[in-house]
């Protein structure tokens, strides 16, 4: 169990990153990568594009860190950058070369069989997510993949909590119809 002292708050990390501290920036990237990815994937519907946008957004963020007026709300500021980058990327989307996927596959830590199965499953999920609306996709990714609460989602997307719950309900229903019950995790604590 980590004590709060060992987990530096975002504001401290942002302050250190402002002075060029690469380790502090690393922690910010690790901490918020999944959230940034969820937002980018919600907008773009494609994992590879989402990863590119996330990387681009982090570079942009470190470049303009002074613009983050409230360092304690770094993640909200980052999400805004990710969303804007994703929207521009979608507008000017280009055909990608498959060679970009090679390094990731080469560095996967599971067996080739597990990697292949995971990749296939990810493709299936991506196809199913593509049938949702952008807002449904973003909400289901933030809630079910990144563990966000409806309050946080509502604040971030500037909608009501009730609306967030409705979107999530519809999104799950549609995903279940497309994926079947086998891909739904049976959480007893939800």
């Amino acid at each position, binding site marked *: 169990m980590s004590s709060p002292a060992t987990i530096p708050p975002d504001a401290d990390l942002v302050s250190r990153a402002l002075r060029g501290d690469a380790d502090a920036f690393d922690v910010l990237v690790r901490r918020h*990568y*999944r959230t940034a990815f969820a937002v980018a994937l919600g907008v773009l519907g494609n994992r590879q594009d989402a990863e590119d946008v996330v990387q681009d957004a982090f*570079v942009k963020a470190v470049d303009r860190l002074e613009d983050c007026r409230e360092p304690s709300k770094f993640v909200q500021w980052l999400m805004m950058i990710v969303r804007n980058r994703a929207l521009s990327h979608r507008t000017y989307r280009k055909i990608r070369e498959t060679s970009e996927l090679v390094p990731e596959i080469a*560095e996967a*830590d599971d067996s080739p069989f597990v990697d292949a199965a995971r990749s296939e499953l990810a493709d299936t999920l991506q196809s199913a997510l593509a049938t949702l609306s952008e807002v449904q996709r973003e909400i289901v990714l933030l809630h079910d993949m990144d563990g966000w609460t409806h309050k946080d989602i509502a604040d971030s997307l500037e909608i009501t909590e009730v609306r967030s719950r409705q979107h999530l309900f519809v999104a799950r229903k549609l995903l279940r119809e497309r994926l079947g019950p086998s891909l739904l995790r049976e959480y007893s604590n939800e």
Partner: protein
Amino acid sequence: MNEELPTDLSALDPTHPPLAFAHRVKNVRTAASGALRKRRTVAPLAMVAHWRVPLLAALFLLMIASAALFRSVQGDTGIETVGTDEVADALGASSVLGDGDDSPSATPADILLGGYEQ
């Protein structure tokens, strides 16, 4: 109902598997290394830049205070500004540099001492 249960999206989680995630983080770090390096070199200058407005304000106030002090010191010593006419008179050049009066010259000393009568 199943719609109430979370969807298992772990296959899309970019933080898994850990090695692939480390690779992604490394890519981000490499891409941002230039900006971070720039920040490290600029940081000391940024501190000066951060204080430039107060420094300039202090300098401005110092200039005003210096000007006021100079004027007060000048008043105490009785030093007054000397015009060019007085300098010319002192050098005895007023007749030369005068206004073209051809009358018999009267030196400033004559005028001052009242010894000159036309």
